[in-house]
């Protein structure tokens, strides 16, 4: 039995925390590594996945959680979440060009949740806008299970040249370790705090939340990219969860090397930090560079130029150990692998009782009234309502890359400067579906995110995910986790979107009230569009276009059919045959067509009985069923026949179900108890309902 001193115990405790070690989740997540793709240059083994998009360019992307800090201190929790994910992308050697913010809150009827959401969005605005990276393409969900534990996930996408990709590891013995940024007492034990359930005492953990400085981050981005250009940086890693302990041990461990560092050299932002505190502080805006000795001067010059605090704190050794000195005294000496490769825990899992959500029967005679009420209530609901209040606060234009704007597209579509290409990125998750069936809900999230990306014309190529659950020590929660990973793996296999990395956030539960969050895997899909000028948005463009429903309305997700449908949509857009396109997502076909009308200020007439379906469904079900593998598209009359012919070739059901017009009215014609009737919606009324929810709740 080893006797560890206080510093060593602190380092081990941090690295073996659930948040850093993935000790419960690793055995399950392993399944993702079986999916390979030629496009994925670096997969699960590094800080963020690297995807080849051709022409010498790579895209790096990853999603992470900042749930615990955001539930206690929402403004800084959300802000530093962004800070952390930006560094994860930056440390691979590329420029961050996009942020996505998937958010989950309890009902906005409760003042506490309104406060949380305003603060979280405020934190993102404060940090994201200042960092000069546009924010768009995220998603938001409301469910009472998020009342105490809101979920704040953050994803970042970077783009760069393939030759600038840097591994997060040390290289040669004798290389210098240069620590950039100052270390303070903020964020001490952040990862251990994130590896516990939230209780009444959690308020006392407020100091575990870091404080972000987006200005320092912006400067750090520029300095890092300039330093990489010199060719002297052999590896780099950001200091996030686990601080200096994590950065040194993981960089050494990955390269089977060791490091020796001297704490008295670490630039501090306050006096008298103990070695223990320095080793585990999670102060933001720091980076550790592994630099060839000959490059010391060149790198120093760049860091000086940007007024950054930095110091050479040590060097790379061949001992395989993390050796820490303070003023000449050895304060820690541990094998790097002990820290970077902690043991796993095999948790037990058990299937909970069948879960159901009550639904009421609908009667044919009431259908027209029910449909009218339902469409209005769906458009108003937080899960569907216009996100304008959110995205107008985010700078979604900076970078001059944003092709499709958030008022006409739910997907982030950015051109890659210097090429003809564009990327499309979307985050998605459906916690209710995952709660009812973790396998189907999680597989469905992958499918749905792919569908979003395909709807603009991009081919889905890779996936990153953030798994948000309760305590893994609860066998039913662990079953939810394992099942949803199985679902995502199956979906990623069929849809050809290998997982390139991500994050697991456990312990999202409220001990006080015994509330566990609904299982919430959030998926980010990256898509590539070879010709940026072909991107299609959801808004109807012209009157007299045909409206075509693609895909059958059926109950269960069929991944093979999903793949075929997605490929076909990408082809149709590549042939420039579509004028508008939207995936059928929340609220089904009815909401999809309403969004196409509202965002395009063009009206439409839809003939409900023409909507393709296998089973006999009534008008209400046809409009609002949330079946997978479906798209709504529009096309000019001239192109319509070719589209239908193409869908027949591909054996995918598609019907022309209506036409756009200028009547300022969205009309649904159907057969209700053998009476033909038309349900009419005044377009400005729909728009008002759709737009008002967030402004009226959040001011």
């Amino acid at each position, binding site marked *: 039995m080893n006797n560890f001193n206080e510093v060593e115990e602190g380092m081990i405790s941090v690295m073996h925390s659930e948040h850093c070690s993935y000790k419960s989740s690793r055995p399950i997540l392993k399944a993702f590594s079986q999916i390979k793709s030629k496009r994925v240059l670096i997969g699960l083994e590094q800080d963020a996945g690297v995807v080849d998009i051709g022409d010498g360019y790579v895209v790096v992307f990853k999603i992470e959680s900042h749930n615990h800090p955001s539930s206690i201190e929402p403004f800084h929790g959300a802000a530093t979440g962004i800070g952390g994910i930006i560094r994860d992308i930056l440390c691979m050697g590329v420029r961050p060009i996009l942020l996505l913010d998937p958010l989950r809150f309890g009902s906005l009827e409760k003042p506490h949740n309104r406060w949380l959401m305003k603060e979280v969005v405020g934190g993102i605005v404060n940090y994201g*806008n*200042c960092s000069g990276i546009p924010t768009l393409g995220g998603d938001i969900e409301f469910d009472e299970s998020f009342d105490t534990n809101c979920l704040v996930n953050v994803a970042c996408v970077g783009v760069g040249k393939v030759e600038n990709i840097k591994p997060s590891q040390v290289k040669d013995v004798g290389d210098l370790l240069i620590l950039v940024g100052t270390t303070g007492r903020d964020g001490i034990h952040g990862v251990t705090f994130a590896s516990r359930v939230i209780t009444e005492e959690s308020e006392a953990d407020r100091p575990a939340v870091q404080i972000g400085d987006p200005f320092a981050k912006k400067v750090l981005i520029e300095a890092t990219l300039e330093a990489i250009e010199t060719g002297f940086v052999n590896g780099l890693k950001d200091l996030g969860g686990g601080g200096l302990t994590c950065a040194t041990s993981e960089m050494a461990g990955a390269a089977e090397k060791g490091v020796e560092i001297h704490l008295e050299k670490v630039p501090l932002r306050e006096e008298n930090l103990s070695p223990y505190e320095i080793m585990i502080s999670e102060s933001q805006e720091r980076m550790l560079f592994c630099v060839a000795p000959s490059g010391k001067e060149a790198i120093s010059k760049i860091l000086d130029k*940007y*007024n950054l605090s930095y110091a050479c704190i040590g060097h790379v050794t061949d001992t395989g150990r993390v050796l820490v000195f303070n003023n000449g005294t050895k304060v820690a000496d541990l094998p790097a692998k002990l820290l970077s490769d902690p043991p796993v825990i095999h948790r037990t899992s058990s299937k909970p009782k069948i879960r159901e959500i009550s639904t009421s029967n609908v009667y044919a005679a009431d259908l027209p009234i029910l449909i009218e009420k339902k469409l209005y209530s769906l458009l108003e609901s937080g899960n569907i309502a216009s996100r304008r209040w959110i995205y107008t*606060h985010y700078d979604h*234009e900076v970078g*001059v*890359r944003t092709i499709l704007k958030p008022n006409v597209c739910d997907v982030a579509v950015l051109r890659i400067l210097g090429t003809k290409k564009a990327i499309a990125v979307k985050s998605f998750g459906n916690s209710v579906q995952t709660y009812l069936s973790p396998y189907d809900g999680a597989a469905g999230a992958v499918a749905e995110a792919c569908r979003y990306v395909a709807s603009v014309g991009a081919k889905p190529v890779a996936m990153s995910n953030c798994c948000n659950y309760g305590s893994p020590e609860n066998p039913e929660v662990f079953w939810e986790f394992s099942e949803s990973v199985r679902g995502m793996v199956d979906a990623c296999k069929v849809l050809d979107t290998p997982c390139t990395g991500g994050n697991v956030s456990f312990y999202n539960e409220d001990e006080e009230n015994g509330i566990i969050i609904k299982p919430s895997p959030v998926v980010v899909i990256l898509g590539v569009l070879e010709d940026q000028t072909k991107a299609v948005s959801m808004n109807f463009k012209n009157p007299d276009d045909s409206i075509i429903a693609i895909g059958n309305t059926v109950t269960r997700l069929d991944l093979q059919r999903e793949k075929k449908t997605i490929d076909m949509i990408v082809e149709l857009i590549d042939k420039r045959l579509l004028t508008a396109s939207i995936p059928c997502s929340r609220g089904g076909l009815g909401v999809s067509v309403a969004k196409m009308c509202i965002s395009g200020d063009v009206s439409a007439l839809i003939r409900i009985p023409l909507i393709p379906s296998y089973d006999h469904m009534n008008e209400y079900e046809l409009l609002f069923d949330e079946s997978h593998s479906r798209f709504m598209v529009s096309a000019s009359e001239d192109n319509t026949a070719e589209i239908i012919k193409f869908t027949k070739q591909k054996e995918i059901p598609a019907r022309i179900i209506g036409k756009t017009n200028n009547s300022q009215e969205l009309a649904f014609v159907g057969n209700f108890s053998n009476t033909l009737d038309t349900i009419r919606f005044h377009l400005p009324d729909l728009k008002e309902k759709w737009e008002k929810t967030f402004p009226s709740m959040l001011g």
Partner: protein
Amino acid sequence: MKVAVIQFLGSNCDLDSVWALRQIGVTTDLVYYKDFEEIYYKYDGILIPGGFSWGDYLRAGVIAANTSCMKLVCELSESDVPILGICNGFQILTEAGLLPGALIRNDSLSFICKWVTISVESKKSVFTKDLVIKSQLKMPIAHGEGRFATDDLNKLYKNNQVVFKYLGENPNGSMDAIAGVTNLNGNVLGLMPHPERASDNIIGGKDGLKILKYFLT
């Protein structure tokens, strides 16, 4: 002319501005603010880009305005060098005293990013001398502190210094919906909307080039 886009710490539309200018063929360099003092003589025009210089921590633009780089820019303005300040650049120019007025928190108290329409109100600026009065330009705004305020509006009108106004909705509560102003001489222009973000049809339009193309002369 040859243009310097000055990069302060925290500028974040610097690369976008360089991209837009180069797209239309303007010889453009990104110049770090500390370097500008050594190489200023190479340039015939200056663009101060948007962003959050020094995090806008004290007040938007105030720290940049007090750098020796900006003291030099002030001197250059007196020798008729054309200077365009966009968003944070506009804030820096007012803080430096090169342009009248001030830019305060939006009346909504929140950051706003959206496309707006502005109208050309004066040809006094070198950047608008060839534009048609009352013609309309579409471009995005993205700011939290863009509400124009001045204590002598009449003087600005009398001297033809009000160059742009928001049309339709006044997005930030600016006095008289003013979106851009010029100096008495007409060589310095500041505006809150981003012409560099309206520089290509694929990103939503290219009305911004009507302003930027003066640098081509």
